[in-house]
Structure formats: C-alpha cells, structure tokens
C-alpha cells in the first residue's frame, strides 16, 4: 500500500537537498497551472516524467501505474467540461469548439502538475518534507503531529493488514453483509488497539523524561550550485515556451 514511501527512500535523488526539490516542484506546478497553451504542460509532463524515471530511477511500470490513479477523476471531470448541457428550449447536449479547447488544456495541465507532485513524493521521504515545513515556519505542533502521525501510520497499517488477513481467511469478505460486518469490526478493533498504543507510547516516553517535545537529529544536506542553475534554466525554458507559442 505504501509503495510510494518505499520509493522515496530508495531512489537516486535521495541526497539532493529537499528544499531544492520542493522549490523546483512548486515553481513548475505554478508555471504549469498558469500556462494558457497546451505545449508547456506537455513539455513539463515529458520533462518531469523522464527526470523521475531516468534520473531518480523510479521503475517506469510503477510510475505509469501511479499515473492511472487520478485517471478516474480526470476522465469524469474532463468529460463533464467537454459536454455542455442546455435546458432551454429543451434538454440538449452539445460539444463546442470552445469546450474541446478548455477540456484538452485542462487534461494536460492536470497531468503535468500531477507529474510534478509525483516527482516530489517519489524522491522525498516524508521526514525530509517535514524539514522543509520547518523552514517555512509552520507551527511546531503541526510539524510534530505530522511526524508522529507518519510513524504511527505504519503500526496501524500493520494491525489492519493482519486483521484483514485473519478475516478473509475465515470468509469474512464473502458477501456484502459480511463485508460490512467485518470491516466495522476491523475499524473498531483498530480503534481500541490504537488507543492502547497511544497510552503505551506515552508511558514509555514519560519514563524517558518526555516533557512535550520530541527532539530529533535531522539529516544534513548541502545546496548544490549545479542543481540550482539547472532549476533556473529549466524554469526559464518553460516560461519562454509559454510566450513563444
């Protein structure tokens, strides 16, 4: 289930400064979203996808599978914009030149931005992302909650997975009625187990002099001039393409 997380730790760009990746991704997404042409988003989609696959070494098959996740939403959304509905004089549907243009622009803009998001999430572990948030001066409690929740997710996924296996091996998901029953039992036992875990965690922390702060050493990164120049050049390229077309 958490394959993206695994990839984030095992790619070739793990040693690049997370702030560089964050700035690159945010600027590219903004350029992509503000673009009015169809060329810039396609260029961004191609560039960022090839960066993810070739440079970061994310398996291509896995990457394309990920791209398919938002497709259900994208498909429905684009179709809805493509087809225009009229209620007067009678109920009728139409596709116009303008709606085709809007829908196709939207399609590539969304895919281009999604590729940027994937680039970030596939190359940056969440621990590094919290260090970016810290530099952006977000409230301490928020960052602490994010890092705690991140660690606890794996415990809960493990618990839920084991219960699910036990239930399915006893035909717990064989009919719709059973599905509802099993799933609600799973969630309620997950709730009580996680409640217990939270208490245990607090006791173990308190016995180690916990006073409300978790102080963790962060991995140190260096900015690389090469990467910064690359980011500036490629963003200028995208922006120039936008104005040329």
């Amino acid at each position: 289930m958490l394959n993206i997380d695994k990839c984030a730790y095992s790619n070739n760009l793990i040693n690049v400064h997370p702030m560089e990746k964050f700035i690159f991704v945010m600027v590219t997404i903004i350029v992509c979203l503000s673009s009015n042409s169809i060329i810039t988003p396609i260029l961004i989609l191609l560039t960022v996808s090839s960066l993810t696959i070739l440079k970061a070494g994310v398996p291509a098959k896995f990457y394309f599978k990920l791209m398919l996740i938002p497709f259900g939403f994208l498909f429905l959304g684009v179709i809805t914009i493509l087809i225009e509905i009229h209620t007067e004089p009678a109920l009728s549907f139409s596709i116009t030149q303008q709606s085709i243009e809007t829908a196709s622009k939207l399609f590539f803009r969304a895919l281009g931005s999604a590729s940027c998001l994937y680039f970030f999430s596939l190359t940056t572990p969440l621990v590094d992302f919290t260090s970016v948030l810290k530099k952006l001066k977000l409230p301490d409690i928020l960052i602490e909650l994010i890092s705690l929740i991140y660690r606890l997710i794996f415990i809960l996924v493990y618990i839920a997975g084991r219960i699910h296996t036990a239930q399915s091996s006893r035909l717990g998901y064989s009919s719709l009625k059973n599905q509802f029953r099993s799933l609600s039992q799973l969630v309620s036992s997950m709730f009580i187990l996680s409640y217990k875990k939270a208490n245990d965690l607090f006791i173990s922390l308190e016995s180690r002099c916990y006073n409300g702060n978790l102080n963790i050493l962060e991995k140190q990164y260096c900015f690389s001039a090469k990467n910064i120049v690359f980011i500036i050049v490629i963003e200028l390229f995208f922006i120039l393409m936008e104005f040329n077309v």
Partner: protein
Amino acid sequence: MHIMEGFLPVSHAAFWGAASLPFFVIGIRRINQKVSANPRLKLLLALAGAFVFVLSALKLPSVTGSSSHPTGIGLGAILFGPAVMTVLGTIALLFQALLLAHGGITTLGANVFSMAIIGPFVAYYSYKLLSGLKVPAGVAVFVGASLGNLLTYVVTATQLSAAFPQADGGMYAAMLKFMSIFALTQIPLAISEGILTVLIFNFLKKYNLKELKDLNVVEE
C-alpha cells in the same frame, strides 16, 4: 471525492486555501491549548490522525467491486470533534496526496474545505442536533455520517463548477452537470458510509465505552 493535482486554476486554488486557513488556525490553537493542559493528548491526537488516514485507505464494501474508500469524516468528527478534525483531516489529506497519490498539493486548500471543514462540521452538528432531539443513536450517527459525506460532494461539485462555468448558462449549468455525474457514484457511497459508521459505532459502544467517555475530554 478528491480534486486531483492541477485541476483547479491558480486563483481558485489560492482562494480555497485562504478560505480554509482561519478554520485551520483555530483548530491548531485549540489543539495547542488542550495539549499544554494535558501532554498525553498529543499522542492520542497523533493516533487519531493516523486512524483517520488508515480509515480513508480502507476499501468500502460494494457489490460492483469498484474500489471506493470511506471518508472517515463522520466517524472522526463524532469521535474527536470538528475543530480538531480540521487539523487531523488536513494532515490526512496531505499524506493521501504524498503517499497514496490521491488529491494534490495545490488543490489541498479546496479538498480541506470540503472534506476537513464542511464535512466534519455538518456531520458533527447534525449528529449533535439529532441526539439532542432524543432520536435513536443509530439514526443520528447514520444521518451525521451520510450527510457529512454528501455535503462534501456538493461542495466539491460547487468548487469545480465555479472553476469551470459553462460558456452559456454559466455556473448553474456547470453545477447541474457536475452534480448529476458525481451523484451516480456519491449517493451509494454516502449510504454505505452511513451504514458502516453505524456498525462501527455500535461495536465501539459495546466494547470500548470507557475510551469513548475518555475521548469527551478531547472533544470539549
């Protein structure tokens, strides 16, 4: 339903981000107050956040075999209170975008507004109202959870039609389109989420009454 990354224009994304911000700040303040009074709550809240995230990653029972996920909004709001849910829901949405590729960073504000603000508030207050009227607890939970889910989708449809109004007929025509298309998928989902939440709630009440009473500390 998550609005995917890049689907909203920059101005709309910024607008929904700004609209969500005050609720988020209030939620953070409230959490800060509670945590400084009782440090144990911090871990409980973190566990609640992880719980909401894992809940939203589970598959909802369905006959057709399509993979749809419960939002967990109703359950979370009833258990932990709406203001706290705003912050936990925002973190869960962020994780969904980064770890599961559902939703996005630029559309985070819009998704937070529908799923972590409107959904929980509607679910929580309709549940409170109905239980105040002495309606059976099962009905109150069902109505709260399914209304929370439905309203979430109405807000999402509104956000999309505000971003993409039809050339003639404007936002109203666009609204008609988005509502009717997403109604097909969302109304059955809202009902099954309602049923599921009632079942979960019954199990919790049967076996974990003490913890539910403890949680009232978290709520108000």
